[in-house]
């Protein structure tokens, strides 16, 4: 009897060890580079598509995007274009990361190229200065570079806005009949324990924008004092108990944990669609304090697959890629150019919120955003949470 037990144990252990070593042996080792005369990467000039594809082939047709969840701003379709049309393999890293986490991931993997190292990032505009200053990004200008508005890109090609959106209020109308339409409404007593924001203002671009937008509403779009005013607004919200420490998402909205949320339109609108009335979600842009939040793409300076990363950006900035953003309610950087050329289908345009809100949106420059981000990150804990 003991013999049987022993044999079974031994067998299990041996087979597991065999499996384990096979598993470990199969890991590691990325795609091989090499081959003659790969296109130059140092000047940031555009690489023609055929040369790029050849280089990608030599690299092993892999790319590691980081912090790009599939259901965020239409990245699902973009990933499909890459895998289906170009045969790329994607290592989707850490989709739950925020902007600050992505930069840290680049720093941490500086000397360790491999399947864990990010190739392409997607960060809030406020983080681009840090990234450029620290030399974390590589230069590149996509084929459609000239049609990207000047304020949406770094002149030398270190970063380039993928898409932008505006902050919206989303309300679970099963639980709330009196829907808030503007920032001052949120302070009403009837919304006690109801409002959730999307993340931590010390690390998340979206949360920083939420603070700024509230501030812009209070200061009547005076950018200079908006950060301070925003912190004061949220301090009040926290004090009267309207602000919840919970991160808002579709789940908390549906369950009623945070019946009111503040998220980008390209997150709120797909959430409304997915929930499909279960519960019904009303998404609207606030009357004042409309902030445009551009998200910028970048290529890591230490990318293990630099050509794959460049192909990734080419896809994102192609008409198809930009349209993928728009179909999920995120305004692509080349929106104006595509509208002018008439390449946007009418039915897609019809799903978007009214254009006049976007016209009234306040767009901060990179420097303004970076300064506001630092101020808010440094003071959130003390001013709002009183610690």
């Amino acid at each position, binding site marked *: 009897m003991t013999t049987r037990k022993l044999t079974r144990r031994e067998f299990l252990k041996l087979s597991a060890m065999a499996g*384990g070593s096979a598993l470990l042996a199969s890991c590691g080792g990325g795609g091989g580079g090499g081959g003659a005369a790969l296109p130059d990467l140092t000047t940031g000039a555009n690489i023609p598509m055929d040369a790029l594809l050849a280089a990608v082939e030599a690299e092993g047709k892999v790319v590691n995007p980081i912090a790009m969840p599939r259901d965020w701003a239409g990245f699902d379709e973009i990933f499909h274009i890459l895998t289906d049309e170009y045969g790329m393999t994607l290592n989707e890293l850490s989709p739950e990361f925020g902007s600050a986490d992505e930069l840290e991931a680049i720093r941490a993997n500086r000397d360790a190229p491999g399947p864990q190292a990010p190739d392409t990032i997607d960060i809030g505009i406020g983080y681009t200065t840090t990234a450029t200053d620290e030399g974390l990004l590589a230069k590149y200008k996509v084929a459609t570079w000239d049609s990207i508005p000047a304020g949406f890109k770094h002149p030398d090609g270190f970063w380039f806005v993928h898409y932008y959106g505006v902050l919206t209020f989303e309300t679970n109308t099963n639980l709330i009949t009196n829907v808030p339409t503007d920032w001052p409404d949120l302070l009403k007593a009837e919304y006690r324990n109801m409002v959730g924001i999307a993340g931590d203002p010390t690390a998340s671009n979206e949360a920083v924008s939420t603070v700024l937008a509230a501030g812009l509403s209070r200061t009547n779009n005076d950018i200079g004092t908006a950060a301070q005013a925003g912190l004061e607004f949220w301090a009040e919200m926290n004090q009267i108990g309207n602000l919840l420490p919970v991160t808002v998402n579709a789940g908390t909205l549906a369950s009623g944990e945070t019946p009111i949320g503040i998220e980008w339109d390209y997150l709120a609108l797909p959430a409304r669609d997915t929930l499909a009335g279960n519960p019904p979600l009303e998404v609207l842009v606030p009357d004042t304090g409309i902030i445009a939040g551009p998200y910028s793409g970048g290529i890591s300076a230490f990318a293990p697959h630099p050509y794959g990363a460049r192909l990734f950006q080419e896809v994102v900035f192609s008409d198809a890629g930009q349209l993928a953003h728009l179909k999920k309610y995120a305004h692509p950087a080349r929106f104006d150019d595509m509208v002018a050329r008439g390449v946007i289908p009418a039915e897609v345009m019809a799903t978007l919120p009214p254009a006049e809100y976007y016209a009234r949106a306040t767009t901060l420059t990179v420097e303004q955003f970076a300064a506001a981000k630092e101020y808010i990150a440094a003071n959130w804990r003390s001013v709002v949470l009183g610690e």
Partner: protein
Amino acid sequence: MKRANVWSWVIVFIGLVYFFLPLVATFLFSMRAELGHLGFSAYRYVFSDPGFASNFGYSLRWAVLTIIASLLLVVPTVYWVHLRVPHLRPVVEFLSLFPFVVPAVVLAFGLIKTYCCPPFALKVSPALLIAAYVILSLPYMFRSVDAGLRAIDVRTLTEAAQSLGAGWITVLFRVIFPNLRVAILSGVFLTFAIVIGEFTFASLFAWPAFGPYMVLMGQSRAYEPAALSVVSFILTWASIGVIQWVGRGAPGGAQVAGVR
């Protein structure tokens, strides 16, 4: 004994209420995915998502590897400590409790920085993750095995077995391991459960494990995370049941230290 019985039932009842209420609430919420009536569409979504199978498979694989590595590391060590070097016990115990002294988040950071780059470039293979999981399981494995060994008289058993002509390997695998079955199993359960649901290391080391997958689901879907929680609970429970069945062995095996 009758009186003790009643109190036992009361305590167990209270415990079960506390444990099952959240599960019931989660289940009820997951059933609300269809408008107007209760339905399983959230579960259909979860099962049809390719990420679910692949991520759970990853975690399952790593859990098994971790358990094996941990057993092979801990049991002989603790046995040896009990038998031959009891004065080194505090050292071993301290080391096994290390993951408590240095929390997982910090340990992850330290491991990343130490093993990111040549000549120690371990980070690119799951070996580092498995090592991290073994570390996480160390306190529980050590505790369980230690308590189990404390409950049997190791010295006598070993001497008895050796006086019957057994070598070290035989003593270990035929005498000690069977007597530790209950203790080992509890450590194994814990290790398995830890690895399946583990988030910190998997996220910081950027591996597609089940933990980060659940976080990602939680960020984007409303009802599916609840369904996922229920499913993961049942799957883990089933897996542990399998482990228990595998470790059951023939009834009434050669247990020298008769007890209970």
